[in-house]
């Protein structure tokens, strides 16, 4: 855990990432807070706080005595939320840096197109 945000938020985001990339499918059981604490070497109360946030947001749900599971529709909802934040998180800093360096609109578009082609992941 190495950025400035609270660890519980980072834990919540790691679980969200696993749901978004499909490594945790809907109705799958997520690791227990003890497992999360041991794996990330963090305090169990902090891990529990991250998990509880996902429960209160409806991403996970609790089955009493069994554990935490990924809620139905969680992946679609998370993707939608991440898309809403995409502009602020990625596009704005990109444009700010481009402006600083005097990179114009056309040049920037060309860069995005050619980079997409180079890595073979054309955004289509």
């Amino acid at each position, binding site marked *: 855990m190495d950025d400035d945000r609270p660890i519980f938020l980072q834990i919540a985001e790691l679980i969200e990432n696993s749901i978004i990339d499909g490594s945790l499918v809907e109705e799958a059981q997520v690791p227990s807070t003890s497992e999360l604490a041991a794996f990330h070497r963090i*305090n169990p109360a902090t891990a529990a706080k991250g998990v509880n946030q996902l429960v209160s947001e409806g991403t996970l749900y609790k089955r009493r005595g069994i554990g935490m599971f990924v809620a139905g529709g969680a992946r679609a909802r998370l993707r939608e939320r991440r898309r809403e934040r995409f502009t602020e998180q990625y596009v704005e800093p990109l444009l700010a840096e481009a402006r600083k360096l005097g990179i114009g609109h056309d040049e920037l578009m060309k860069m995005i197109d050619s980079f997409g082609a180079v890595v073979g992941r054309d955004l289509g």
Partner: protein
Amino acid sequence: MTAVATAHGVTKRFGDVTALDDVSFALAEHTIYGLLGRNGAGKTTLMQILTGQAFASSGKVSVFDAPPVENPAVLSKVCFVRESQRYPHVYTVRHVFRTARRLFANWDDTFAHGLAADFQLPAGRLVSRLSRGMLSALGVTVGLAARAPLTFFDEPYLGLDPVARQLFYDRLLADYAGHPRTVVLSTHLIDEVSDLVERVLLIDRGRLLLDEDADDLRGRAVVATGRAEAVDGFAAGRTELHRERLSGLVRSTILGGLGPHAKALAQELNVELEPLSLQQLVVRLTVPPTTTAPTDREAAR
């Protein structure tokens, strides 16, 4: 919060030295605390008072709702692992375990021997023949296997190598998950424990400076680097803890969170922001003011 121990206005004087100055706080059950502060700040004195090994000059401590001094009912629930432990010179590691079994109600002998094996502690070895690192390993083994509802570790790892320290942290977390209790970990290796502790107590020159959730302290302060005018613009109206200069470049440690507003301002002014680690925050908060004055560094140039 259910408190397992409380201190109210605790002051401790040794002659004209005030080791603790009006310290008040409560330790919650099932919480891992980091007790931080410089050497001589009063950490050990505080733990001695909470474990009934010293008296406060004034103020009141209560442990499991009773005064701890010569109170066996309280002390059977408390384990204090000192930086230097002393045992009778005829004691082997096994003797220490046997004594601990009588002292601590929750003692787990199997766990103790498992830890001894992990730390490569020979059970039959005389304690007086243990190396410095092995003596520390014995201390943390006793502290963990005692499973005391209130456990103090006072700089428990003198001479322990990084592998053994990691083993200690991992075993502590794993055992704590199954057997929650209150742990107070006094340490200078703050970076190593900053993700482990739930709450931070910071003592400086006998006074309690911080009593806060560790997660809330992350990003409590930032390091802003940029051209002097830009950093001045960013720092305006904020509390500056420290400032360094290199020609036109300024690096400033600034108290206060990093809201979206601060991030936008930094971007606009072309100021780079980095989070300050808990260890660096503690350094900045406890370094004597004379050495933080920017003029000192500049005068030395």
